[in-house]
């Protein structure tokens, strides 16, 4: 699996340092209350697991999953669907969406609209990676780990064909794995 990676873009050590930094900032900003972390499956799972342990204050967590364009649901409904909804109410709570990567912003834009409808006290965004080259919807990211170039990246939750999520670093997938000349 490591051999499928052309370059390591962000090392395991860099990820851990950044997650600790983000956790510290989040803990300081929400110091007078607790925060509900909402992770968007599946890619953000490793980030969520590390981030929640880096936040030194009371946190609750919840998980959501939304269908992705091109997935099986596309042919049946033609519209994005909530595959896994929140387990408990977020009304009146401080909510922090935890995302692995933001590129077009379409999924997050949909989630923001959906979650705002559930009347949280505040709604912020924490993303490990930002890939602005493909942005269609401008999103204000409150806590950002790294801005990355427009490369096909895998690892630390990010997949290609559902694989590579368990790599401990973020790397650029070898081009010949998804195209041949």
């Amino acid at each position: 699996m490591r051999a499928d990676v052309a370059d390591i873009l962000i090392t395991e050590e860099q990820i851990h340092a950044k997650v600790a930094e983000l956790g510290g900032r989040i803990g300081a900003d929400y110091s007078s209350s607790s925060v509900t972390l909402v992770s968007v499956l599946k890619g953000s799972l490793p980030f969520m697991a590390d981030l929640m342990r880096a936040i030194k204050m009371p946190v609750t967590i919840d998980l959501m999953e939304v269908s992705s364009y091109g997935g099986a649901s596309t042919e049946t409904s033609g519209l994005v669907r909530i595959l896994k909804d929140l387990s408990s109410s977020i009304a009146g709570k401080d909510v922090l969406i935890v995302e692995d990567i933001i590129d077009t912003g379409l999924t997050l834009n949909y989630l923001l609209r959906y979650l705002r409808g559930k009347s949280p006290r505040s709604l912020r965004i924490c993303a490990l990676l930002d890939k602005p080259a493909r942005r269609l919807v401008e999103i204000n990211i409150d806590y950002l780990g790294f801005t990355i170039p427009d490369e096909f990246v895998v690892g630390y939750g990010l997949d290609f064909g559902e694989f590579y999520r368990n790599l401990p670093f973020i790397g650029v997938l070898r081009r010949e794995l998804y195209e041949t000349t």
Partner: protein
Amino acid sequence: MTDQPRFAHASEAELARILNYYGVRWEYEPRTFPILWNTDGKVVESFSPDFYLPELEVYVELTTLKQSLVRRKNRKLRRLRELYPDIRVKLFYGKDFRALMLKYGRFDLAASLSGLEGQLMPERLDRQPSLRLAVPARPVESAAPRLPVVDRESAEAEPVGASDHPRPSRGTRRRRGRRAFIGAEES
């Protein structure tokens, strides 16, 4: 979003489907911006961005050309930004769109939008190198059927007289785009 316009290119139809999927309102080529006038004041060049997203107040121009062939479009976009500084336009390059298709698992479509074979008229295919997309050895679900694509911009980006094959008229390109869109909808 309800009445589908006649898209000039299958990639535009695909972007419309993506926007529909995520509930983003769009309009197709709603406005033409004059960008060059002759000495008589007549408009000699204009630019019509492909999409306008009214809720986000941004225009989107989608180009599936090879990266090396987008110079003309980049020049027009620069001119547009000079003349209309308050207008926000996002230029979506072919490689961006192709990467998006890869992300969504639409490997076949990504290959057809590669900017090489997918952008060429059939009679020109034999002159170009082949670019094929390899689906990972491990099974990947929901690879979409390959869309037929039509040429829109490869001819547009070439210097006048550079091609043996004249650029199809806009009406022809729209009809082809429409057929491609209908084909994709029915598949």
